[in-house]
């Protein structure tokens, strides 16, 4: 078994390497790739956090989009500093998720999925109707802070590392245990005095905080955002990262996001086969690699497969 200390050391080492590597990314295509992978990792981690309570958060795109637009307004329209834009995005996404989550988390499983999907689409349509943020054509002129223009990849990687670490710590904490318990048997958790509903809302809020920041980072990376960026497909691609990477450990979404994003670049070289690529990735992962890459690595290291806690609907 890998000892806890070895894990901590290796994680820190890898993080340091990632950070240093990102310093050399420059400003060209490599930089975009690094940013892209990092943000996808963040979104995958955010989506996975809600999987702890056994739900597929298809409202992800809604919160990412809100974060993107709020941060875009702060930077491009109001000229506020980047830090404010980032915080604004996170706070807006969290507040919205508290309201929406309180209402929608009364449902479960396919019902929750549908209502989340509906929410995302409604938001997207609202964005197309608002002239201030550019309607259907979107918003332009969202640039990273001047201080970091040449080192934006590093900034992004640093923020992503911190947030993923926080999510990981939360997952390992008592809160994490309660979330997994809720996934396992929420009626039981309720009988021992825990307000299951509010706990679920908290889980979604944490995930949305991260998603909002992801959206802000995305907006400043692409410089241009439009409602079409934040559709259902975003959540589906994120799901692909997690399925390929493996759900049982937080390394899964990280691996999955990295591998798929890089592979997508290679595949894209052959033509516009995005749908086929991501679709196949999900199908192959689900049919042939149920534990994802993490599962394969575990097996090759001789570790026992982690018990997969199933949700009961």
């Amino acid at each position, binding site marked *: 078994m890998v000892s806890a200390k070895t894990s901590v050391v290796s994680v820190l080492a890898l993080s340091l390497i990632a950070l240093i590597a990102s310093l050399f990314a420059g400003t060209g295509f490599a930089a975009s790739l690094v940013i892209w992978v990092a943000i996808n990792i963040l979104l995958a981690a955010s989506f996975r956090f809600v999987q702890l309570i056994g739900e597929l958060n298809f409202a992800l795109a809604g919160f990412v989009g809100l974060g993107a637009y709020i941060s875009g307004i702060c930077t491009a329209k109001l000229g506020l500093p980047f830090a404010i834009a980032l915080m604004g995005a996170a706070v807006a996404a969290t507040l919205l998720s508290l309201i929406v989550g309180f209402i929608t988390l009364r449902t479960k499983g396919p019902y929750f999925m549908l209502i989340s999907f509906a929410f995302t689409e409604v938001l997207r349509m609202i964005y197309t109707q608002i002239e201030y943020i550019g309607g259907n054509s979107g918003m332009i002129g969202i640039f990273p802070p001047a201080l970091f223009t040449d080192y934006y990849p590093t900034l992004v990687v640093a923020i992503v590392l911190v947030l993923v670490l926080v999510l990981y710590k939360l997952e390992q904490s*008592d809160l994490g*245990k*309660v979330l*997994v*318990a809720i996934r*396992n*048997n929420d*009626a*039981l*958790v*309720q*009988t*021992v*005095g*825990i*307000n*299951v509903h509010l706990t679920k809302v908290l889980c979604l809020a944490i995930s949305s905080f991260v998603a909002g920041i992801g959206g802000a980072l995305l907006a400043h990376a692409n410089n241009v955002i439009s409602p079409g960026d934040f559709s259902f497909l975003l959540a589906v691609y994120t799901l692909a990262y997690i399925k390929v990477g493996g759900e049982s450990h937080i390394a899964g979404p990280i691996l999955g996001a990295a591998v798929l994003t890089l592979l997508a670049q290679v595949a894209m070289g052959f033509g516009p086969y995005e749908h086929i690529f991501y679709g196949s990735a999900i199908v192959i992962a689900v049919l042939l690699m149920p534990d994802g890459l993490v599962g394969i690595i575990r097996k090759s290291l001789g570790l026992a497969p982690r*018990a*997969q*806690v*199933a949700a*009961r609907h």
Partner: protein
Amino acid sequence: MITTQPLLKVDHLSRRFGGLTAVSDLSFEVNQGEILGLIGPNGAGKSTTFNCVSGFYPLSEGRITFLGEDISKLNTAQVCHKGLVRTFQHDSLLSDMTVYDNILIATFSLIRSKSERERRVQETAAILNLTDHLKEIAGNLPHGLQRMVSIAIAFATRPKLLCLDEPLTGLNQTEVGGALAIFRRIRDEFTTSILLVEHNMKAVMEICDRIVVLDHGVFLAAGSPQDIKQNPAVIAAYLGKRA
């Protein structure tokens, strides 16, 4: 020690589902420090009563009072904070988590300090004879031990009233004996009352201080095991069929 103020008072409880009346005008009490058995043939309304008392179902009519306080409108989590906890007959534990975590979850809402939680888990496990199994995954345990885990989860909240839903189902003779000994200990050492819904008549007669009998959703009889055993109406409705 049985004191005069009843712990739980069920007053004229009725519960209807659509056109069906599951329980009608039921009244009974559970006193402090007693083990009360709730028995009756299948369909008598025991589970429904149980679910109403523990906050799972709303009441159609009537009132549930706990230590003088009306708890009829409270949900399960709130009821737990008042001191009333229940177990489940099926799906009664967190099968993919360790026994330790199963019991630990129950301590979160009531205990703040980490060390106290740890102590509560160890103490509870000891009473339920689970200390050797704390690191095992609950779902992998044999049935008898799983039952003990589900009782441990409920008992970890140190309730004043522990509601057990058919806890002895599937247990063999020895395990039943062990469980009954634990119930006695819970009652005597912790002054915790137990409301027991059970089909195992022998065990019910042995462990209960008093018994309430339901039939077709209505109150049939109440009294000591001796009284109930000899009550002709009860024998006719229930015991007679299962002699």
